[in-house]
């Protein structure tokens, strides 16, 4: 039986209206800037002698403005978790700068680093794994307040109740004394979000916040995050591999491959007119429910993402790219080009 191969084309995409109000990306004063960040992990052979480095993040730069939402899209092993951990202050960068509200973070003292961490909320991927099983909701939400030095008990109680109302865990009394295992997946994720919000952060890092949830709950949580983001004018770094949820949430998308950001653009532009061959492949692999899907094979790049210890010379995607130009792509790493305003792509096709 002959099955046609479906190629991805720009025509297949229709307009998106979801993020109309924040369509235009206006550069405002940035909250967080990342300059040429490298996160390398040392590989040791039998405990002594260097065997090289895992170059998880290898030269990433971007600016995150106040109230801006950015999605970092990439497959596992592309370095997005290392990027996230470095931004959360959980892992020191090997080189490069992190500038938060005009202050460099790498030179911070422990106290300053703690202060920096208080300003960033973290929404984990797996809510059940992220919540301590022996603490009830009240204790879970109280802990960050205690650590950050809120001494007054009634004040703590007030803020716990406010955060719980904010994430729609009401009536509050019904949930205060429940333990994580007594909550559904969606409710657990709400507790995680409440915990991330309780110190009134300026920024939220959400690591695949809905990938462990069921379809019907997923949308509810995305909407909640979106409401909170708008109400408090939060900056959000949304890390995901699922392009279909991105447009409901982020103004800009960064596509990450093998430790580098290969394409940066506004959401609508990137989904309607993707440029980098890797982005095209990701979009081609994302399906919408449609019975016709079963009648076509999808055109996908062969092979797998490269090892980050010895990434390929030149463009890191060239061994899998159908449009690779020999003599160029396999020799020299492409710099970032800007073929359209505010649409950056690291690919020689757009020189």
């Amino acid at each position, binding site marked *: 039986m002959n099955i046609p191969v479906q190629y991805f084309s720009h025509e297949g*995409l229709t307009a*998106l209206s979801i993020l109309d109000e924040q369509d235009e990306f206006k550069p405002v004063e940035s909250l967080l800037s990342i300059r040429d960040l490298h996160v390398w992990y040392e590989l040791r052979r039998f405990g002594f002698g260097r065997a090289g480095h895992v170059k998880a993040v290898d030269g990433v730069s971007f600016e995150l403005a106040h109230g801006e939402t950015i999605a970092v899209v990439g497959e596992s092993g592309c370095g997005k978790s290392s990027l996230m951990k470095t931004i959360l202050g959980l892992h020191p960068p090997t080189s490069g700068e992190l500038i938060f509200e005009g202050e460099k973070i790498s030179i911070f003292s422990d106290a300053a680093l703690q202060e920096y961490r208080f300003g960033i909320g973290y929404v984990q991927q797996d809510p059940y794994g992220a919540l301590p099983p022996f603490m009830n909701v009240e204790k879970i939400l109280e802990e960050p307040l205690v650590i950050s030095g809120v001494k007054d008990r009634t004040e703590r109680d007030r803020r716990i109740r406010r955060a719980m109302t904010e994430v729609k865990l009401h009536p509050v009394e019904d949930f205060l004394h429940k333990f994580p295992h007594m909550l559904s997946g969606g409710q657990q994720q709400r507790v995680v979000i409440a915990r991330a919000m309780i110190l009134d952060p300026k920024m939220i890092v959400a690591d695949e916040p809905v990938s462990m949830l*069921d*379809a019907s709950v997923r949308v509810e949580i995305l909407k909640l995050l979106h409401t909170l983001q708008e109400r408090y004018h939060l900056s959000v770094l949304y890390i995901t591999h*699922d392009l279909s949820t991105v447009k409901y949430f982020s103004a800009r998308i960064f596509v990450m491959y093998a430790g580098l950001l290969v394409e940066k653009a506004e959401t609508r532009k990137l989904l309607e007119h993707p440029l980098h061959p890797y982005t095209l492949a990701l979009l081609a*692999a*994302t*399906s919408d429910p449609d019975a016709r899907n079963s009648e076509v*094979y999808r055109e996908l790049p062969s092979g*797998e993402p490269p090892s980050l210890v010895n990434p390929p010379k030149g463009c890191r995607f060239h061994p899998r790219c159908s449009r690779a130009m020999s003599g160029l792509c396999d020799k020299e790493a492409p710099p970032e080009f800007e073929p359209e305003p505010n649409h950056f792509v690291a690919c020689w096709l757009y020189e």
Partner: protein
Amino acid sequence: MTAPAQSLLHIEDLVLHFKTSRGVVQAVDGVDFDLGVKRAVVILGESGCGKTSLSRALLRLLPRNVEKYSGKVVLQGTDVMELSDEEYRTSVRWVSMSLVPQAAMNSLNPVLTVGDQVAEPAMVHLGLNREDALGVVSKMFKHVGIPNDFMERYPFELSGGMRQRVALAMALVTSPGLIVLDEPTSALDLLTQANIMNVLKRLKHELGTSFILITHDIATSSELADEVAIMYAGQIVETGCARDFFPAPLHPYSQMLMASVPRLHSDTDPMFILGQPPSLMNPPKGCRFAARCPFRFEKCSEEPPVFRKGNRSIKCWLHA
């Protein structure tokens, strides 16, 4: 196009209840469906609706706390529920029906090479010697797209996508007519996932294998589905051909579930379903979805029978 295909599997009133210290969990409660040769049915449902229990019930891989296990599972003309456990093991499991369990790629034996472990079912169930079995393995590896020199490798030397292919090859090695896939792509990356779906499509066309695909990922499921069955709280609430179902689901739950899928190529705002699925310990009388259903009326306090509409069936009073 969809002429009544030769029947491969016919399930009637399949029930699997578990005994727990707090009561009886009605994980699978009266499931019926049919599957033709060379067809793929997708069983869609949210977590806790009994999907995995259904796969266990089909393959009779039961835990010890079973309270009730009954119904009819007619595979290629024989009711396999009548067989003793030993007969089932020797003549059904792997031989005519095999399973790719959830997270199969992490269930490979770390101390055996992948070639040897894929060969094992062929040696046990088909009585082949090691050389012949490895010959079959190398053929199956070709079908699922694993290079032949991977036979000598250990699971830790393979990537997630490759290990998933190994698990698939293991289910294929005895050439069963039916493979049950439990969330085969949920832990994989986007491109790997699309690749595995390509492999499954190819197997369906080249080897004529039928599939039961159990998943909660609606978008990906449409890559393989010929038929769709929607499961809610232990019961199948709607079945139909994929061509009819995806554009126009009929049961209110299926409609809301489909509306909750974020879509890349459309600008409709996805919806969510209020409330939570009922506990399977004490499911509500009448329609189990009634409490969350915007269309409920008096009739819904009685259990709806299955209504037929052409080749679709809906368990909902609205379609009486």
